[in-house]
């Protein structure tokens, strides 16, 4: 189970403290899933970073009672002068996993061929994303954190990602954040909306989507989130 209790995140800016969101609480039991809808700048990626533990909340508490992934397909953590394989070895060492049994899957999924043994700096963004996604699949997690905006690729890649995540691992929990309701409508049992620094809950995905459309129609009121 993951639980957030009165979580808030404040960033220091030149204008003063800025509330990304405040008083966010929810729980996600093992094997369940949740979609988080929010327009650009609503704080979705920050939410994913907090849940993953990469960043700490300013106030409140986050408990993780299961193995939670890092933000899926995150390409930023690669050392560019190391090969894809060396980067794989690093992640495996951090998670205490032997990399050798994982190689066939990684080679098959990434379709990188000999490039797996070339420095990452020679990769295109798409190649990096494939490697990053394959890495997140190679390590066993109970809950995946998915930022849809990060999983950029062609139709074939998307299809294979969806197969890996939502078919082969359909028993796992996940949190999917997106500014686009399609994926959330397709895969999530429930959804919430992140807007104006608050998390709004709804009885079902359709109600959440209806509210999200309303927030999209409004001008963003970011000024209110500065504490002055």
């Amino acid at each position, binding site marked *: 189970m993951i639980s957030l209790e009165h979580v808030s995140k404040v960033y220091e800016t030149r204008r003063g403290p800025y509330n990304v969101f405040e008083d966010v609480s929810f729980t996600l039991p093992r094997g369940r899933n949740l979609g988080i809808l929010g327009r650009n700048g609503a704080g979705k990626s920050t939410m994913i970073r907090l849940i993953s*533990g*990469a960043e700490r909340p300013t106030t409140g508490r986050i408990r993780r009672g299961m193995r*939670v992934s890092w933000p899926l397909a995150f390409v930023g953590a690669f050392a560019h*002068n190391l090969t894809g394989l060396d980067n794989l070895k690093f992640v495996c060492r*951090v998670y205490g996993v032997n990399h050798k049994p994982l190689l066939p899957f990684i080679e098959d999924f990434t379709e990188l061929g000999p490039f797996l043994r070339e420095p990452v700096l020679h990769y295109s963004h798409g190649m990096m994303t494939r490697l990053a996604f394959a890495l997140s699949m190679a390590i066993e997690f109970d809950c995946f954190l998915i930022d849809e905006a990060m999983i950029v690729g062609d139709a074939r890649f998307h299809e294979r990602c969806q197969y890996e995540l939502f078919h082969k691992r359909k028993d796992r929990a996940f949190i999917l954040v997106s500014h686009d309701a399609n994926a959330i409508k397709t895969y999530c049992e429930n959804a919430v909306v992140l807007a104006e620094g608050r998390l709004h809950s709804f009885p079902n995905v359709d109600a959440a989507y209806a509210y999200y459309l309303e927030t999209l129609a409004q001008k963003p009121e970011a000024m209110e989130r500065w504490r002055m």
Partner: protein
Amino acid sequence: MTAIGELPFFQCLAIQSRVLRALFLRELITRYGRDNLGVLWLIGEPMIFTLGVATIWSLAGLAHGGTGIPIVAFAVTGYSSVLMWRNATSHCTTGIEENKPLLFHRSVLIIDVFFTRIALEIIGATGSLIVLSFFFTFIGWMPMPDNLLMVIGGWFMLAWFGASLALLAGAGTAFSSLVHRLWHPIAYLLFPMSGAAFMVDWLPSKLQYLVLFLPMVHGVELLRHGYFGNVVQTHYDIGYMAECCLALSLCGMYVVREAGRRVEFG
């Protein structure tokens, strides 16, 4: 996988040691690669520095107060000491920035990044000192250490000082980039005062009093007392140096903890 701190101690220890190992290997390959000498550069790089300095000091005939210490031995012990307190800090002041994306893996903490870099620098400087002193002793340019235990003691104190300074400065960069910018001029200015290029005894007593406020001076003096024995007159107070290191370590660990809360990716 729960955050470190909510798990039993030994489990945390296991996680941290595998993270440290992973970071250590990654840093080693990232920095030196697999081409030519590869990881041997870890020792090679400080060796070249030390050799260069030893050559220049020998050519310049740096005054050694008529004490009869071989100049090469003086340079090797002196410059190796500088490597100990300077390099770990220099590398730690860029540690957060260069490793920030790794913190996306929850079990990787900034203290692990610092420990890795400190360990690498200490290993490099120690390896360089051992190789050079073996070599110069073998060809007869350096005497055998008079009291090996004292040498190791001095070296350990310098390592402690370097490590605690590195923690404090490295974590300080999370609060202000000034720390990184100021460290290089500070290190440059501290070098001539650090006891590497002189013995405290050569200085006028007023200057001795001032220079002995610098903790690393005590370490270098102890190291040289151990190396050259009573041929040289040394001035040091290891109690004072230990107090400074302890204070730096405590401040360092506190600032590291606070820095961990501040790191943002945004």
